[in-house]
């Protein structure tokens, strides 16, 4: 019963519109624009999350410092925060009349209702998924391996790239996939902070909402697309143990031994 309850809405999306029409409607300008905006903003957001999140997770996961527990809690806060509240918060901080409104104005920037706002909203709500996983992965790192690497002449930076990162790669990949899934589906914070302008800030979930009373079939098409993407991400996460255990490949090319 429970499984049916969870599965039925997904099936309904595909059963309402014939598959042929689904595919042809992917070419609709609204869908195309939303897809481009979604991919672009999510790519930038993920790049930011990986580049800043990975060293942050490493520091929090491996160092003991005052206020560490507070840092971990802060990282997890966006997970429990309602997305609409996050959107209002971002607006209150970076909006025209917000906390940082004046300095941002001086720089000639206008953040709210721009693509930057979409990226910020996605980063805000999605990064905790990656950070949490990353902190846990680096916490689980065997300190003896770090010590061994140091006595073998590796600097702390080299330890990070050659030992910590490759060993945490599996968990980090899973965290990144979850963050990506969250980012793709982001709605609440984005509509508050970035609005829904086709071709600029209208991502796929926002397009579903705006097409809802214009053309329900388009809304269904976009939904079907998101179901497929989400299913693929879930599958990738579930299959993760298989490729982390893999003997021959390392997901981080730059982390591989240079001596081979």
């Amino acid at each position, binding site marked *: 019963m429970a499984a049916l309850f969870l599965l039925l809405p997904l099936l309904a999306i595909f059963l309402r519109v014939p598959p042929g029409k689904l595919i042809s409607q992917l070419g609709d300008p609204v869908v195309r624009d939303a897809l481009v905006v979604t991919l672009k903003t999510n790519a930038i957001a993920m790049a930011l999350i990986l580049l800043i999140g990975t060293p942050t997770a490493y520091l929090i996961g491996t160092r003991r410092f005052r206020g560490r527990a507070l840092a971990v809690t802060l990282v997890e806060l966006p997970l429990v925060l309602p997305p609409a509240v996050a959107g209002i918060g971002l607006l209150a901080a970076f909006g025209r009349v917000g906390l940082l409104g004046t300095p941002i104005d001086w720089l000639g920037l206008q953040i709210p209702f721009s693509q930057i706002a979409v990226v910020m909203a996605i980063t805000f709500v999605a990064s905790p998924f990656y950070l949490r996983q990353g902190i846990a992965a680096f916490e689980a790192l*065997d300190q*003896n*391996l770090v*010590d*061994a*690497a*140091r*006595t*073998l*002449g*590796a*600097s702390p930076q080299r330890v990070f790239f*050659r*030992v910590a990162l*490759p*060993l945490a790669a599996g968990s980090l990949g899973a965290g990144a996939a979850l963050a990506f899934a969250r980012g793709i589906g982001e709605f609440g914070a984005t509509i508050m902070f970035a609005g829904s302008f086709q071709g600029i800030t209208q991502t796929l979930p926002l397009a579903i909402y705006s097409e809802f009373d214009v053309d329900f079939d388009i809304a269904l098409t976009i939904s079907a697309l998101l179901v497929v993407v989400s299913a693929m991400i879930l599958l990738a996460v579930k299959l993760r143990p298989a490729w982390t255990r893999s*003997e021959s490949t*390392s997901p981080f090319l730059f982390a591989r*031994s240079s*001596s*081979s």
Partner: protein
Amino acid sequence: MDALRIDISVPLRSFVLELALDVGKETVALVGPSGAGKTTVLRSVAGLTRPERGRISCGKATWFDADRNLFLPPEERSVGLVFQEYALFPHLDVRRNVAFGGGGNVDELLERFRIGHLSGARPSRLSGGERQRVALARALARDPAVLLLDEPLSALDAHTKTRVRAELHELLAETGLPTLLVTHDFEDAATLADRVGVLVDGRLVQLAPPAALVAFPADSFVASLGGANLLRGVARPGDNGLVEVTLAGGERIYSTDEVEGEVTAIVYPWEISIALAPTTDSALNHIPTEITSLVPVANRVRVGLGVLVAEVTASSVDRLQLAVGQRVTASFKAAATRLIPSR
């Protein structure tokens, strides 16, 4: 030749580790109960733990000098450290593990340690003995000036241990590096090291070649490490020119050592012989007792005799048809009975 000089003080949880030790071109083993500070010594030399006071130097290079506020990080010290559980990198194959530190001829090392055929294998697929050889090869690949071994044999099962110990002994002689190893097993220390230091609660109780440690233990702890029987009693001059000790159980034994008062008598298991009937021989000490256990150890048998343990050959056990529960007489010479005043 570059000697390792250690003179450090490190506060630990319930005591302060104070150690002054020079290691030349030899193997020195630090032995003691767990929590005595043994691993801290190795970590201090490797630069993984910063001592509070003192100096550590190797040849002309000073690695740590508290007075000059000098503390080189591990990567700037020339040490090869073999970790207790070997700490091989699980994501790298054998070859990349050995090559991690760079330098050295990796192929030559793989050959020398007979792990060439394993070069593409991950550590998880190796046996305990193989892991140890990889860990040693990896530590030596950087051409270190000092070799440090943390419980090198404790991760091995009893079966492979004897063989690996012999291999390790040969290897240490071959490398000719100042080597410091720590272990809780006196037998490992005695077989591998030229000198053995006994570390208790952060202090070096005695430092001597293994044979001297067994023959002249500084205290009852050192004696018990060597596997000796410890018998508590009261000593007074006897009428035969020897010292007579009345044991807690009422038995009287004699010793050539001249001590009086509360003592611990030390008798090594291999000094005790077992007879079926009360005997008259050159040994002065005869204790009637009962066999409580028979445990084979290699080609010998450890025979439990109440408060005593004797070690005899397996063939003697067969010849006398010794069995648990049998009444026997344990005999040992007065000259083989060491006396140490109790504190």
